């Protein structure tokens, strides 16, 4: 059970750093796509060769393949949630900047009208 504990904790921490490191450069986005494709590939393999998942699980010291899948699922889900949160915060920031620009434009144009009168 030791190997899997180390691997999962390492991945979890890596995920945390990876997602938190804010800057959504094209390299980061590309790696996300690669990871996604890899996940799909794994899923297909797992469906075709169910026994293989069990063997891989044993390799890592996990009792059943289903458990291993669950671990991966939970990790991907946490990654998704955090990623989505950061993404939404960034979008909110953009909207707020836009709204502020609008508010200032409006206030300043009112000011100009008042000054002209």
């Amino acid at each position, binding site marked *: 059970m030791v190997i899997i504990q180390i691997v999962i904790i390492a991945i979890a921490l890596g995920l945390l*750093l990876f997602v938190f490191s804010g800057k959504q450069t094209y390299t980061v986005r590309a790696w996300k796509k690669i990871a996604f494709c890899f996940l799909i590939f794994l899923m297909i393999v797992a469906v075709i060769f169910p026994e293989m998942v069990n063997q891989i699980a044993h390799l890592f010291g996990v009792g059943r393949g289903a458990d291993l899948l669950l671990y991966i699922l939970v990790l991907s889900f946490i990654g998704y949630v955090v990623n989505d949160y950061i993404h939404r915060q960034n979008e909110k920031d953009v909207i707020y900047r836009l709204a502020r620009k609008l508010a200032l434009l*409006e206030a300043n144009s009112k000011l100009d009208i008042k000054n002209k009168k």
Partner: protein
Amino acid sequence: MNDNVAIIIPVYNEANVIAGVINDLKKKFKYVVCVDDGSKDGSKVEISKSGSYLVEHPINMGQGAALQTGIEFARGLPVDYFVTFDADGQHRIKDAEAMLKELAKGKYDVILGSRFLGDSIGMKISKKIILKMAIKFSNITSGLKLTDTHNGLRAFNRIFAEGIQITLPDMAHASEILEIIAEKKYRYLEMPVTIEYTKYSMEKGQSMINAINIGVDTILRKFSKW
């Protein structure tokens, strides 16, 4: 009449008290800027009637965002000094004037109000405990040593006003401002202020559970800066 200062007030649903607050300020200060943060009550009408400047957020964006908007608008006014003031009437004009006097000496860029150096009339003990914890937390994240980190009364000069960019929309902006002060090495001073906790301001005030949100947002930002 002081015409070298812009008072900046973020307003969200304060129709009952905002007119009184503005009227008191208008007696002393020429430039009062209110940022209506998408209020759903009659705040906008009250501000329009009061003869202060009104900047309207099209949507509710939070106090931090409203402050930033107010500061950006006030940069365009012919003033050297700026004061942020709460809309609910819990701050005293006297305190703001004392802070401005100190600021005018030119030794500091920003002066922060502290209710723990001064008086807090009617503060609940539960609020005090949470606030003290927030102060500890904020001092750790910003690296400054302050006695009050979430006070809405601040006075600052043009260097600070031109340099500041608040990105956190909600209450977490208070910690963010301190981090900006630490990062850009602005010269700062804390001065005692008196806060009056009326029944009104306590009902309106921050719900204590919100401290969790502020904390998480502050930590998240630390991470994303790496």
